[in-house]
């Protein structure tokens, strides 16, 4: 049948790539046994295109310095445990190490080995290895890789790898001197579709082209620049949202306590810090007693941090803050004093140095979305912020505690007259706000140093968010946090991190002049704050 005949032909072409290379795999292996560097180098090149199934293993061994030769010219590969296998068959071989000599390499051989590995990996059974290899070939822009690329393309089934191979092929075509204009134009359009900084530099390196090709390259560069700019804007937005979600986590608790009680809690940052230390303790105890569930340490730390920080918050409200209602400025001073005490207490217990909190495996790494690199830990923090916010809103909206809290916020005396025990609500609200701060601490332990000063670095930013968004309004806090985060990240490349922050602070000071109650002020009949 013609179809199977074609298949056989294809395999034949792949196995015996024609008369270009006279040497076969056997001759290449024989060359490795000679002391001649040129012969070894030719052998590597021949082996890389021979299609021999052991080629990758043998060349990798050569690359790692694990390929040995016996005086009778038989090749062996040394395993990691010191045993040897026959290089050509892979069978275990019992040979004394003293009888073997390593196959020698020099720079020329090393270059050939690297190039050969790059090409051979294009045929690896593992798709991700093929993808990495294709990317490496793309970056090398080596016209010599064209035949191998052609073969790899014909064989490739994975669409991602295929795209990457086409791009590598295009890059090789563009750097080759004897390809047709039609091929080049096609290659330029592939580069344009890829549209990243590598593609731009490949196109930027083109010189001495025919007018048609040069014009196509120029227009492709413009298009790539435009799309790169778009991606960089998107990247700033992403970083801004990421920073905003951190600010939101830190400020949400503050917004609740300030909204319900009119109390600025300067020790709020210390609740965040305590949450981070709870994470540290949870990880330490899990490592000591239950190492099997270590990867779940963060999900366990979240409720723990909420409970610990929440209980401390209730204790603070019952012992300190309830004596100071109606005196917001004195509350501010007392809670500041409390924050000093808490910081020093943590410093005395855990020491002033940073503590290591591990990032679980499932949170490390990154994913690629177009021209964006999204790191997992940032993604999880954004998700976590959304979940916390939704849970808080639901708690305020649908639970009876939430109903009471809203009643007290709107009209404390009326709520008391309706039988709500306002002091009790105050304590629970303070506990809730502190608990949320503790959960923020779990998230911050993943991206910041866990030290006694952790809370201090966020407290001023959190205030800014609350004041900007409008007090007692979670939506205001959300919008405030995201706006501040995004503005910060957009200013950073223009003005630098520190100057950007100063600009934001000055803008906020001016903004408060226009809207003294923030963006979304709570409607009420209060004459003055």
């Amino acid at each position, binding site marked *: 049948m013609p179809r199977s005949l074609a298949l056989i032909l294809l395999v034949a072409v792949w196995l015996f790539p024609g008369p270009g290379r006279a040497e076969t795999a056997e001759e290449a292996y024989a060359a490795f046994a000679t002391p001649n560097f040129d012969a070894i180098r030719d052998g590597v090149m021949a082996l890389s295109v021979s299609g021999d199934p052991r080629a990758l293993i043998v060349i990798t061994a050569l690359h790692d310095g694990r390929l040995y030769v016996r005086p009778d010219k038989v090749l062996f590969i040394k395993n990691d445990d010191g045993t040897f296998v026959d290089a050509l068959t892979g069978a275990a071989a019992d040979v004394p190490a003293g009888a073997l000599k390593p196959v020698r390499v020099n720079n020329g051989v090393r270059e050939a080995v690297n190039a050969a590995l790059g090409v051979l990996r294009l045929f690896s059974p593992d798709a991700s290895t093929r993808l990495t290899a294709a990317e490496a070939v793309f970056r090398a822009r080596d016209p010599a890789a064209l035949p191998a690329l052609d073969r790899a393309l014909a064989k490739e089934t994975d669409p991602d790898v295929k795209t990457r191979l086409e791009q590598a092929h295009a890059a090789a075509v563009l750097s080759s001197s004897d390809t047709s204009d039609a091929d080049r134009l096609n290659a330029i359009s592939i580069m344009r579709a890829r549209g990243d900084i590598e593609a731009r530099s490949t196109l930027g390196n083109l010189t001495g082209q025919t007018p048609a090709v040069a014009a196509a390259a120029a227009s492709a560069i413009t298009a790539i620049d435009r799309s790169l700019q778009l991606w960089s804007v998107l990247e700033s937005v992403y970083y801004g949202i990421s920073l905003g979600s951190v600010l939101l986590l830190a400020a949400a608790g503050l917004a609740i306590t*300030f*909204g*319900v*009680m*009119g*109390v*600025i809690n300067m020790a709020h940052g210390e609740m965040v810090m305590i949450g981070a230390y709870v994470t540290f303790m949870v990880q330490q105890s899990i490592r000591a007693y239950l190492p099997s569930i270590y990867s779940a340490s963060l999900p366990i730390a979240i409720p723990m941090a909420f409970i610990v920080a929440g209980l401390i918050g209730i204790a603070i409200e019952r012992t*300190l803050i309830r*004596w*100071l*209602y*109606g*005196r*917001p*400025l*004195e*509350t*501010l*001073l*007392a809670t*500041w*004093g*409390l*924050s*000093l*005490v808490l*910081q*020093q*207490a943590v410093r*005395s217990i855990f020491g002033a140095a940073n503590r290591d909190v591990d990032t679980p495996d499932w949170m490390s790494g990154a994913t690629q979305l177009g021209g964006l690199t999204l790191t997992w830990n940032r993604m999880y923090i954004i998700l976590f912020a959304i979940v916390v916010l939704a849970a808080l809103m639901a708690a305020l909206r649908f639970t009876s505690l939430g109903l009471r809290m809203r009643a007290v*916020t709107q*009209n*404390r*005396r009326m709520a008391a007259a309706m039988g709500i025990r306002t002091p009790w609500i105050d304590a629970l609200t303070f506990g809730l706000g502190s608990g949320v701060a503790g959960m923020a601490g779990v998230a911050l332990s993943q991206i910041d140093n866990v030290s006694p000063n952790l809370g201090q670095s966020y407290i*001023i930013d959190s*205030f*800014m968010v609350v*004041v900007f968004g409008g*007090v007692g309004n979670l939506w205001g806090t959300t919008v405030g946090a995201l706006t501040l985060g995004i503005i910060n990240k957009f200013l950073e490349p223009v003005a630098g991190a*520190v*100057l950007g*922050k*100063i600009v934001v*602070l*000055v803008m*906020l*000071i*001016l903004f*408060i*002049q*226009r809207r*003294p*109650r923030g963006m979304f002020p*709570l409607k*009420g*009949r*209060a*004459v*003055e*704050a």
Partner: protein
Amino acid sequence: MISQRVSTLTIVLVLGGAILLALLNQFTPEASAVHVPAYVIALVGKYLCFAMLALAVDLVWGFGGILPLGHAAFFALGGYAMGMYLMRQIGTRGVYGNAELPDFMVFLGWKDLPWYWHGFEWFPFAALMVVLVPGILALVFGYLAFRSRVTGVYLSIMTQALTYALLLAFFRNDMGFGGNNGLTDFKDVLGFNVQADSTRSGLLVLSALFLCGAFLVARFVVLSRFGKILIAVRDTESRTRFLGYRPESYKLVVWVLSAVIAGIGGALYVPQVGIINPGEFSPANSIEAVIWVAVGGRGTLVGAILGALIVNFGKTWFTSALPELWLFALGALFIGVTLLLPQGVMGLFALRGVKPAVTPAPTISEEEAPV
């Protein structure tokens, strides 16, 4: 409300004490039992400057009802103005021996003196800037804030944001104020060696004089008709407004006056400690200044001076004897004073003729309901 007798006593004690210390330092032999070592002179001089900052805080907090969490910014700005003068006096005695540029600018590879450094080699100009820079910043900030009726906690947070922004700004090398290290390594002030005992004694007496002067000005202001209205604004701003006064004007005047007093305090502070760096802007410093006033007794002026001296002596003793416990002690001071001693030490002694500012009754009325 601040009696003649207590005021006279304060002035006699501050000025007399400073002169006595200076004389004991200058005219007794070092081996003598009554000799005052140089470090005590510098330390007390530093406390008197802090007392000026406390006085400035009391003026706006005790009488204007504005809790400032960024007053150290004005103190530090005055200090930087003086520091710039002192830097220019170094001349060719710096490490690089450059007559035109301070060492840190040579180190950063700068060629010319930035425009805002010109004139600071001339003392009267520097002295003017000590008053003008904090004064103008306070004027602009206060005008914007009071006009749009930003009050209470919001205003406190804004003052904190102000000093935080300045802290970040002064840390930058590009600002031209020495970045992280600030301004230091001073040699002379008005031709006198800043290291010499006689100069230090002189600065101590000068600080005492300025402190007493500031105290008298503040006392005059709060006892005048202006001060009565200011207190009315503090207690019920809206009612005062309905009576036809403009609370923002009264607050602005006392705010700028307070900033100027703080700035002068900073200017006297720098030659005595020999350095000014961005750390002075840190929000924690400003909040500490507030606690001095709270400890002494808010709204008494005398209490502010007393509180600054008590807390700072305590800090010096604690940080050398029990450094681990200092933050516990300071935190406990904050909590204890606000909870148990709302009228401070002055309220405790209940000195005859001194009636501390009474905090509005701690009830949550409709008017003061949380925002």
